[in-house]
Each structure stands twice: as structure tokens, then as C-alpha cells.
């Protein structure tokens, strides 16, 4: 080495790094899984607590509780959508009915996304290669990662259980620590199973996206089988063919059935073992299901940045449209039966959620609120996708071409707007189609209007996202999901009936009229659209005057 380089080479004996080689991959993946475990454990716990507390605050008398049980306890449609609803006259039964299916699905999504991110995602990014150059093997690293994922799962369960126990110990709720812990365990059971599902699909598929799609398809099938089993068609035995059904059969808080843990544990353990085995039978970067490495050129949409965005995001957007359209159609199907039997106490809850009207109008108002939340997620996804292009460096290919930043971002925003409007239209039209099959009397114009009414809150979310993207690009994802999460939390907490309107006003969904019970408030919608557009404009101006920033 030439002395004039000035590099003072100091040769020392190798020093043993802290931590054992056998645990370093575990520690690395645990670190990543713990963060989301804490976040989602908090959300799970708060959701359980809010459900328990809202029940005892709203349904104070035995008569109110009996009315609720009579309304929902016997509805086949409700049972198919949310699971069976026993003991609705108790806080235990209500909590299971109100929150368990949502948490089961959220848990499955968390498990799938976390697992595919830390297994196939790391492999996609090339970081897996670095780890495998250390003192580990493909199977060893996969097993160690799964242990790390297990640490995230335990965190999710622990935080859920702590908050559930604390809420349960509230004297008016009166749920013991044991049942709360068991309930929390049941609620994270799908997360455990789908961590294992994600581990297997990460071996099967060549990309993280594909691995997630495989897992999502499995989740869809599981939900469908459970739905048929609970629909009162005499096929309840099908419940044992679905992982979601196994969790339902745990019957937490109502009549616990711990034996249902047997298929859950067996399924998780077998899939984990299969994932570890498969990891050793393939090359790093390769997949069990053959990847399509060659394809004829399809140039139709490749006319520029916006065309490319359409091509890259169309699968995801179509997935959202299917979810929004299908759920709207189902809501349309059940609205008549649910609405005509709705009690005054339920109307009271609905009104506290900002829903106006009674009967089918009120039910559809709540359903459209759920659709608005879904469309809010679509908006958040659009803006985080734009940020991902910048973080990943692919935007540079356009920014060194005769493409202005304004044109690039304007194209993204316009595309996002079209996606949001079409989402609203899909919700309105398909809700009308579902309702029309039941001869409910809702007009296509009123439900189409109610669907378009869902778009302005999403535009506000989009605008805030673009504003953050322009000013603090690295905070885009955090801010946009925080706004959405906060608005969602306010919607849930709004059911308590004790929240000041100042707090309620901070939720983007609170400014949306509860169509079709009342006509859309086009003035409020105009203001929300203007706020979103102004925020996006400021964000766009800021984007033109800043450095492009990587991840």
C-alpha cells in the first residue's frame, strides 16, 4: 500500500463480534417484527377496549341488550359476514361479535405482510445473500427469521392482552384477566397462521408481491369457506376447513373451546416446517413455482410516467375495486333485512357515528362509512406508491428526461383522483345492485350520489399525503397512515358518545354527510375537495423546490 495514501492500516487480531452467529438473523428480524407488533398490538388492544366500553355505556339496560340480541343474533346475513353472534346480551358476546372478525382478518394481513417482507422481501432486495455469507444456511436463516417473527407475534399478543385485561378489569365491563388473555390469544391466532402461510408463499413465489398475492388468495378462500359455514345453509361443518373457522371455534369470552387450538398449532407448525424445508431445496433468489423470466413486449401503456404507473398499480387497484365493489354489493343485499329489524338503541349508536336516518338508511350509512375508510386506504396507497418510486430511485429515470416534476406529480395526482372517483362510483353502483335484488326501493341516483360522496375525505387524505411528500418526503407514509388511523379511531371512539365535536372534527370522515339517509352535502364536499387540492398544490410546489431523496 503506498504510504502517501495516508491510510493508516491498523492490523489487529480478529475480535469476536457481539452476539452468536446463530442468533444474529433472529435478532435482526425480531427487531423489525417487534416494531409493527407494538403498533398493531396497540391497535388491537384499543379496538377491544373501545368495543367493551362502548357496549356498557350504550346498552345500559337489559331491554336494550335483549333488543340488540334479537336484531343481530338471528340474522343469517350478519352471521355470514361477521361470524356467529351468541350472547349478544352480554359485553362478552358483543365484543366477540363486534370486533373479532375484523381483528382476525387484520391479524392475518399483518402476519402475511410481515412474513413476506422479512423473508421474500429481504431476498428480493439482495440482503439475504449477505446474511447467507455468514455462519448460517438457507434453512437456518429461514428458521431464525421465523423465530424473529415469533417475537413480533408475542409482542402483538402481549400488548393486545395487556390492554384487553385492563379494559376488562373496569368494573362496569367485568371481564376477568383469564378470559381477556384467552381472547387476545384467539385474536392473534390468525396472525400466527398467516406468518407461516407467508413463510411458505415466500418459498413458492419469486417476488414479494407474488408471495403476498398467493397468501391473500388463501385468505380469501378461508374467508369464503367460513362465510358459507356461518350462512345457515346447513354446511356448518365447513368451518373446520378454514383457518378463520378454527379461530371462530375457539369461542373466546362466550364458551371457550381450547381444543380448537390443535388445528391452529398443527397448521402453523407444519407450514413453518415446510417453509424451512423448501428454503433448503432451492437456490437463493429462485422460487419453487417457476418464475416467468421472459415475456413479449407489451408497450400499450408505456407512453410515459403516468402510463407506467397505470401498468404497475393496476393489479393493486383492481384488487381494491373488487373489495370495495363486493363489500358494497353484500351491504346492498343485507340492508333491507338488517334495517327493518334495527332497534332504537342501535340507531343511537349509529347517530353517534355521525349516521343519520333510521332503518335501511342508517344501516347503509354505516356501510358507506366503512366504504369511505376503504377508499381512504386507496388514497393513502396512491401517495405512498409515489414516495416509493422516489425512495427506490426509479423516479430518477424520468427526472433526467424531458419530464418536469410538476408533470410527473400532476400525472400521479390525476391518476389517483380517477382511481378514487371510480372507487366511489363502484361502491354506489354495486350497493344499488345488491339492494335492487332485494327490492329495497333505493334509486340508482341516490346510491351513486352516496358513492361519490365518499370521495372528498379520500381527496383530503391524498392532499395531506402530497403535501407531506413535497415537504418531508421520508415522513409521507407515517403521516398519511397516521391521518387515516386517527380518523378511523375517531370514528370508533365516536360511538362512545362522549367525544367533543372539536375532536370529532379532526376526523376527515366526520365531515362527510351520511348519505343516502341525507343527501350529500356538496358544500362540505366542495370544501374538502378544495382543501385536498390546495394541500396537493402546496406539496407540488414544495416538490419542485427540493432535492430528490432516497430511502
Amino acid at each position: 500500500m503506498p504510504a502517501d495514501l495516508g491510510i493508516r492500516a491498523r492490523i489487529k487480531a480478529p475480535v469476536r463480534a457481539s452476539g452468536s452467529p446463530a442468533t444474529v438473523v433472529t435478532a435482526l428480524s425480531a427487531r423489525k417484527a417487534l416494531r409493527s407488533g407494538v403498533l398493531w398490538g396497540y391497535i388491537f388492544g384499543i379496538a377491544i377496549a373501545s368495543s367493551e366500553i362502548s357496549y356498557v355505556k350504550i346498552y345500559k339496560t337489559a331491554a336494550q341488550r335483549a333488543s340488540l340480541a334479537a336484531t343481530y343474533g338471528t340474522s343469517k346475513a350478519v352471521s355470514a359476514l361477521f361470524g356467529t353472534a351468541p350472547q349478544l346480551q352480554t359485553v362478552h358476546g358483543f365484543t366477540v361479535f363486534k370486533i373479532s372478525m375484523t381483528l382476525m382478518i387484520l391479524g392475518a394481513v399483518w402476519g402475511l405482510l410481515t412474513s413476506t417482507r422479512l423473508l421474500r422481501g429481504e431476498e428480493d432486495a439482495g440482503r439475504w445473500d449477505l446474511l447467507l455469507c455468514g455462519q448460517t444456511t438457507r434453512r437456518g436463516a429461514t428458521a431464525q427469521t421465523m423465530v424473529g417473527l415469533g417475537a413480533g407475534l408475542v409482542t402483538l399478543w402481549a400488548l393486545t392482552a395487556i390492554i384487553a385485561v385492563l379494559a376488562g378489569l373496569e368494573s362496569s365491563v367485568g371481564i376477568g384477566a383469564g378470559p381477556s388473555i384467552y381472547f387476545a390469544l384467539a385474536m392473534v391466532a390468525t396472525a400466527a397462521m398467516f406468518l407461516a402461510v407467508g413463510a411458505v408463499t415466500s418459498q413458492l413465489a419469486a417476488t414479494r408481491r407474488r408471495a403476498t398475492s398467493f397468501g391473500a388468495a388463501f385468505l380469501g378462500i378461508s374467508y369464503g369457506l367460513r362465510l358459507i359455514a356461518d350462512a345457515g345453509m346447513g354446511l356448518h361443518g365447513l368451518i373446520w376447513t378454514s383457518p378463520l373457522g378454527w379461530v371462530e371455534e375457539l369461542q373466546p369470552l362466550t364458551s371457550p373451546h381450547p381444543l380448537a387450538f390443535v388445528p391452529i398449532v398443527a397448521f402453523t407448525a407444519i407450514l413453518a416446517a415446510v417453509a424451512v424445508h423448501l428454503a433448503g431445496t432451492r437456490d437463493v433468489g429462485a422460487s419453487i413455482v417457476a418464475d416467468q423470466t421472459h415475456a413479449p413486449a407489451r408497450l400499450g401503456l408505456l407512453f410515459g410516467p403516468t402510463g407506467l404507473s397505470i401498468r404497475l398499480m393496476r393489479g393493486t387497484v383492481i384488487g381494491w375495486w373488487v373489495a370495495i365493489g363486493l363489500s358494497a354489493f353484500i351491504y346492498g343485499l343485507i340492508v333491507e333485512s338488517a334495517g327493518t329489524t334495527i332497534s332504537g338503541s342501535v340507531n343511537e349508536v349509529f347517530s353517534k357515528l355521525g349516521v343519520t336516518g333510521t332503518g335501511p338508511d342508517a344501516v347503509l350509512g354505516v356501510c358507506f362509512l366503512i366504504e369511505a375508510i376503504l377508499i381512504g386506504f386507496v388514497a393513502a396507497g396512491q401517495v405512498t406508491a409515489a414516495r416509493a418510486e422516489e425512495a427506490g430511485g426509479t423516479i430518477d429515470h424520468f427526472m433526467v428526461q424531458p419530464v418536469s416534476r410538476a408533470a410527473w406529480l400532476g400525472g400521479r395526482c390525476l391518476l389517483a383522483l380517477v382511481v378514487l372517483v371510480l372507487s366511489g362510483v363502484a361502491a354506489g353502483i354495486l350497493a344499488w345492485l345488491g339492494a335492487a335484488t332485494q327490492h329495497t326501493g333505493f334509486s340508482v341516483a341516490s346510491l351513486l350520489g352516496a358513492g361519490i360522496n365518499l370521495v372528498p375525505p379520500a381527496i383530503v387524505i391524498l392532499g395531506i399525503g402530497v403535501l407531506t411528500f413535497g415537504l418531508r418526503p421520508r415522513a409521507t407514509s407515517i403521516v398519511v397512515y397516521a391521518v387515516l388511523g386517527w380518523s378511523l379511531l375517531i370514528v370508533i371512539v365516536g360511538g362512545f358518545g362522549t367525544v367533543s365535536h372539536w375532536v370529532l372534527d379532526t376526523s376527515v370522515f366526520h365531515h362527510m354527510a351520511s348519505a343516502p339517509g341525507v343527501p350529500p352535502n356538496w358544500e362540505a364536499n366542495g370544501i374538502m375537495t378544495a382543501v385536498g387540492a390546495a394541500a396537493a398544490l402546496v406539496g407540488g410546489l414544495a416538490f419542485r423546490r427540493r432535492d430528490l431523496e432516497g430511502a
Partner: protein
Amino acid sequence: MSNSALRTEGLTKHFGDVVALDHLDLEVAQGEVVGYLGPNGAGKTTTIRLLLGLSLPTEGRAEIFGLDCQRQPVQTHRRLAFVAGEANLWPSLTGAETLALLGRVHGQVDEAYRDELIERFDLDPTKKVRAYSKGNHQKVILIAALMVRPDLLVLDEPTSGLDPLMEQTFRHCIHEARERGQTVFLSSHMMSEVEALCDRVGILRDGKLVEIGTLAEMRHLSALTVEARFDGAVPDLSVVPGVSAVDVNGSMVRCQVRGPIEPLVKALAAADVTDLLSREPSLEELFLARYGEDGRAG
């Protein structure tokens, strides 16, 4: 009208307290091939990102063909093409789709030349980007840049990941570009590449341009290496004016000489020299010498 393809005036970039680029004054004439050297963190990529309008300067300005890089990025980009050291392409597109997209966005493609480049770089365009090796990623963005026949090629470690055969192909393409009158601004760590391709070389250190000139000019300012073998006693060359780094190994002496060589020639002539070799410093030696002056790498 200015003959500059690229010009910077006091171009400065701070990242917080870190001065990544410090008042850079640089001019590249049209048709020139200029190398831009410096170790990691010297400010090469920062310079390029400022030229391309991807980053905003803290101070100063940059022009490409007389157009302001910050205020007229679209017009500027019509006349240039850029190749980065990290390709970061879209994994789900094929090579052909990527080239079509980038060509359409640029607006002008010499399709016959593109097809020729695909042949010369031995690229399979039907393959998806995620199935490409790193070298093939690099080939895609090299072809994408060359196929639009830009007036200015801005290249940042362009041969990263290419094998020696493909490196040769790249060099031929740059020679052809120069023959067509295109300007090339080449940032590279590969001294042999810069030495083979560039008319002038700039050396950047800690964000400052410490040297710029032709290789001949730079060699003129640097030491000449002389090796001599003697039949008899070895003379003491360390006392000869201009001579330094004298290294005696038996009957062999190696030394460096700066400035007039005449005193050394006289000293050697007075001794019994049997073998004499002198050579100019390579670019690598010039670069290392420049970075060794303070006894530290930049």
C-alpha cells in the same frame, strides 16, 4: 455564443453542516470528453445530481448548453442522457419494454442504432429486469442513454458491473460518440477507462476541484520516474536538484524527478550506466500522488 456544453459557477452544495461541493467552477467544451475523478464522498455524484436538477444548489449555478439546469430542466434534459452506477429499474418490465419506455419519454430514438447496441452489448431484451444480472441492468441504461444520441452524455460509474469485453464495447461507443461531436462527462473510479477515453481530467477532493487539465499537462506538473542500472559504483542521486524518492537496490536505482531533467542526466552520464528507463506517471499514480499530499485520502 458560448462553446460550452457544461458550465458551473461557484456551484456549492451543503447537506446540513457537511460541504459536499464547494464553489465548483468547471467548464466542458462541446465535443470534449472529460473525466471526473475523486474517491468516495469527494462530491462527484453530488455534482452530477446538481447538473441534472435532481438536487438544488446551496449556492452558485450550472448551465448545460447555455440553459440553466435548475430553471430549465426539461429543455436541458432534451439534450442529454444520463447513466447512473446503480440502475434501479422496474423489475416487472422486460428489457425491451424499459428501452421503449425511456425512449418514448425522451422523445427521440435512433431505432436502428438501438438495435445495433442491443447486439453489441449482447442483451436479451425479452428477459424481465428482475431476471437480469447487475451487468445486464447496466447494459439496459447504457443502451437507453446511447440510443437517443444526445448532445451530452453524463456518465456516473457507467461500467459498474460490466465484464471486460463489455467495457471494451462501451469504450468503442464513447469513441464513436466523440467522433460524432457528442460531449461526454465521465465520472469513474476506473483510471484506465478515464485515461483511454478522456481529453481532460478533473480531480475532486473534499468537494473542491483540485486539478483539471489534459493528461499531458498533469504529467508535466508531476514527477517522472527514472530507473537506472550501474556497472560500477552507484552515485548519490539524492543530492541532484529536482530528484526525490531515491531507492537503491544493489546496482539498481529508482528515483523521481521534477522540473528540468538536465541535472539528473549529467549525474547519470558521469557514472557507468548500463540500463536506463524513464516513464511518465500513469493517471493512477497522478491521482494517488494528488491524494497523498496531505498524507490522507480525501
